[in-house]
């Protein structure tokens, strides 16, 4: 058995131990896929630093920790305050330690065309539409440890369907709250935005302070032709949490996907954002910012694949690292053969504020077509001395001038967010998190 090759680190051992307690779905192909994925995970274990994609994010410490399964009973009953985001007024789905909580969610009077279900409900109703997303064989590469882990153990999650032509006006709020320490939760999201449909989703991670847990969330977004998806990712996990996420979008013809990501919390955070532009004239824009302090480690891996003609992508990412933190960014643009007329741009700018902090960035271009415009730029540096001098010459104290400039630097990633109330709120969250302290200090 391939399992025998496993490097039985405490992490892998704990996964194998906890897998015994996980229930089965009763659907043969679902259970088979889960078993396959568990075997694959056990065979490879966590990726090592030798693995190019994990070069800057060491999992050595994580591999020495074992996470217990979630106490389901507690997760279903614990009283928690659901965080509110201004401007996010639509339906709400709340997951506590990866478990769906009907009592905390708001699913009454959904707008026409919008279907929101938890994964078990969706599977019970009709598993077939989920077969593609949940079958292991389709998408996982050989050594994709967390994908295998998530596919093996995720029992809950969110299934969103927006009917063709439906315009969902109010943003849907999907909240993940961590309450239990020392546990691992795994959730799955499958989102299908129908032809010509419009929807805004806000994925929101929060944690009770000092909850050292592991969460994995693997999300698939399908944008049918002419669909419009606005995705806002607000990561405000507890300072000791480990969070591994993948958001994978398939963008159809003339469809538009837009992502705004704000990374604030977490001890070890990895976000893999992948988009495949499979339809002609599809578009995928991404904006993101991380603001790190203490010993935070945040790793964003973005990859946009242009696979059809006249597709476009624009990415703008900002990072600030202070304390002993480490910010990692990889932004890859791939233009496949035949994807003529593609227009791709990426900008990644970073501020390094401390002698103990580190920023590693790797913007990549892989171009296999010639009728293409592709460009990227990346910088790592400090606040502009002249701007600082200008502000100080106007009587603004140094610390405040620094805060102002840092905030302005980060806000570039939010300026295109159409939801004004949310934009202002995220700006405030950033201010509170910025290492330089609040502006009016």
């Amino acid at each position, binding site marked *: 058995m391939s399992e025998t090759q496993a490097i039985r680190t405490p992490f892998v051992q704990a996964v194998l131990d906890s897998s015994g307690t996980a229930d089965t779905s009763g659907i043969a192909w679902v259970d088979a896929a889960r078993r396959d994925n568990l075997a694959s995970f056990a065979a490879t274990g966590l990726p090592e630093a030798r693995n*190019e994609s994990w070069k*800057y994010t060491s999992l050595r410490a994580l591999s020495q920790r074992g996470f217990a399964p979630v106490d389901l009973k507690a997760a279903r009953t614990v009283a928690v305050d659901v965080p509110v985001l201004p401007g996010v007024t639509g339906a709400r789905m709340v997951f506590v330690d990866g478990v769906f909580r009907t009592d905390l969610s708001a699913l009454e009077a959904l707008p026409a065309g919008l279907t929101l279900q938890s994964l078990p409900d969706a599977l019970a109703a009709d598993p077939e539409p989920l077969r593609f997303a949940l079958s292991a064989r389709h998408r996982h590469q050989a050594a994709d440890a967390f994908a295998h882990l998530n596919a093996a153990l995720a029992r809950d999650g969110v299934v969103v369907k927006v009917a063709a032509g439906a315009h969902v006006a109010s943003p849907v709020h999907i909240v993940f709250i961590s309450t239990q320490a020392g546990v691992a939760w795994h959730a799955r999201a499958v989102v299908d935005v129908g032809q010509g449909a419009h929807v805004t989703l806000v994925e929101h991670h929060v944690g009770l302070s000092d909850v050292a847990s592991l969460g994995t969330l693997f999300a698939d977004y399908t944008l049918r032709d002419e669909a419009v998806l606005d995705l806002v990712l607000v990561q405000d996990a507890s300072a000791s949490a480990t969070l591994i996420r993948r958001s994978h979008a398939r963008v159809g013809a003339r469809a538009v996907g837009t992502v705004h990501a704000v990374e604030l919390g977490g001890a070890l955070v990895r976000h893999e954002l992948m988009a495949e532009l499979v339809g*002609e004239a599809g578009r995928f824009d991404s904006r993101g910012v991380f603001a790190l302090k203490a010993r935070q480690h945040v790793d964003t891996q973005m990859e946009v694949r242009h696979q059809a*003609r*006249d597709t476009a992508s624009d990415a703008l990412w900002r990072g600030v690292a202070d304390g002993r933190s480490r910010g990692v960014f990889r932004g890859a643009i791939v233009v496949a*053969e*035949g994807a*003529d*007329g593609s227009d791709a741009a990426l900008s990644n700018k*970073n501020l*390094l*504020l*401390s*002698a103990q*902090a*580190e*920023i*590693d*960035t*790797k*913007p*990549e*271009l*892989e*171009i*296999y*077509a*010639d*009728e*293409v*415009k*592709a*460009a*990227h*730029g*990346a*910088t*790592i*540096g*400090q606040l502009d001395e002249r701007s600082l001098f200008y502000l100080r010459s106007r009587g603004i104290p140094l610390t405040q001038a620094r805060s102002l400039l840092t905030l302005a630097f980060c806000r570039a990633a939010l300026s295109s967010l159409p939801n004004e109330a949310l934009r202002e709120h995220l700006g405030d969250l950033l201010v509170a998190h910025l290492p330089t302290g609040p502006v009016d200090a």
Partner: protein
Amino acid sequence: MNESENMTREVAAPVRDNAEVEAALNRRYEAGFVTDIESTSLPPGLNEDTVRQLSAIKQEPEWMTEWRLAAYRHWLTMPEPDWAKLEIAPIDYQSVSYYSAPKAGLKSLDEVDPKLLETYEKLGVPLHERAKLAGVAVDAVFDSVSVGTTFRKELAEAGVIFCSMSEAIREHGELVRQYLGSVVPTADNYFAALNSAVFSDGSFVFIPKGVRCPMELSTYFRINAMNTGQFERTLIVVEDDAYVSYLEGCTAPMRDENQLHAAVVELVAMERAQIKYSTVQNWYPGDENGVGGIYNFVTKRGDCRGADSKISWTQVETGSAVTWKYPSCVLRGDRSVGEFYSVALTHHRQQADTGTKMIHIGKGTKSKIVSKGISAGRGQNSYRGLVKIEKGADGARNYTQCDSLLIGKKCGAHTFPYMEVKNPTAIVEHEATTSKISDDQLFYCLSRGIGEEDAVSMIVDGFCKQVFRELPMEFAVEAKKLLEVSLEGAVG
């Protein structure tokens, strides 16, 4: 959709129908001839005995033999690197002959096989009087042994040592021993370890304190005998306040088998020393179907050991089937400067994975990277570079610019820059663009009565100008011509 398809067709059509262009594209490799002279070769295969034999042939001292053996033993434990964006058929290291030398016993240039001289003549190597006219001292490496070195006297008067590595090991043993492997350790990487074990020859340059080398030093490499891997080892040491400009250029005769080439170049710059290292690489790239061609795995590294030193790499890479090469600078000395200027061209089925590494260690260190990649036919061209700012490198500064030009529908241009910054006073900037020769540019030239070929050549020349400007004059001319020949007709 139809509209845009039609537009593309209109643009591309005149090119596809152009028979002349096809002919030019498929032009044979001009430097592809084999010189038939007697050579002493070791049989194919690699083991400790091969290494010992090689060392014995070269009459090396004991320490050198041991050094090679240690490298060989380490090489055995290393895996072949597979991270580069290159598709390479497995290399059989046992089928390569690790030594080939022209018949021994040459004392002066006059004794050199006239055929050999003829070879250089064809390649335009300025030996003999031509050398003097051109003002260039040549250490010509014909396969594995240096057969003639000119201008020795003039250089000796200036105190400069410029000789083959074999000679240097025999006659300047202590100097070589002090510096060899100090920049690229024997265990540095797979190909460097292989080179350390079996390097056949190369050049040694030593510029003493305060000396500005009176002329540009140049080595022409030429791979000749069948099945002979060429493993040069070059070591350049420039002492305080000294300066040297070194030119390396190469063409190889046509051959159907892949020839293995794994060179190591080490540069050491002491305080306020400057080294300018320029390369034009035009080895056989294989035919249009990717048959044959040189496999070129090179480790080039410069160590700016002293404060205020400067190392500048300039390369024009148009040859080889596979290029794996990352000339690097270790900026150890405070305020030291590293530069990398590169033009890499891949046509037909050539693959290049090339770039640089700038390791900033000292305070106030600066580096600049300008890389121009041109892909045509089915060529795959990758820039892979690392800029690393270590904790102590206060005020370090890097600027990187990578531009790619695509000519044709089947080629690829890729950029993989790594930036690792650990010092908050450093500034690192990277910019990259990918584009094709724009229709506007072409149209403008055509409307002025400039032919399509000339227009492309002009635009490419303009694209590369920033790099050519850094080349010494003789090389700039050759480089420009090389690009023209390599690219004729490849309009997209």
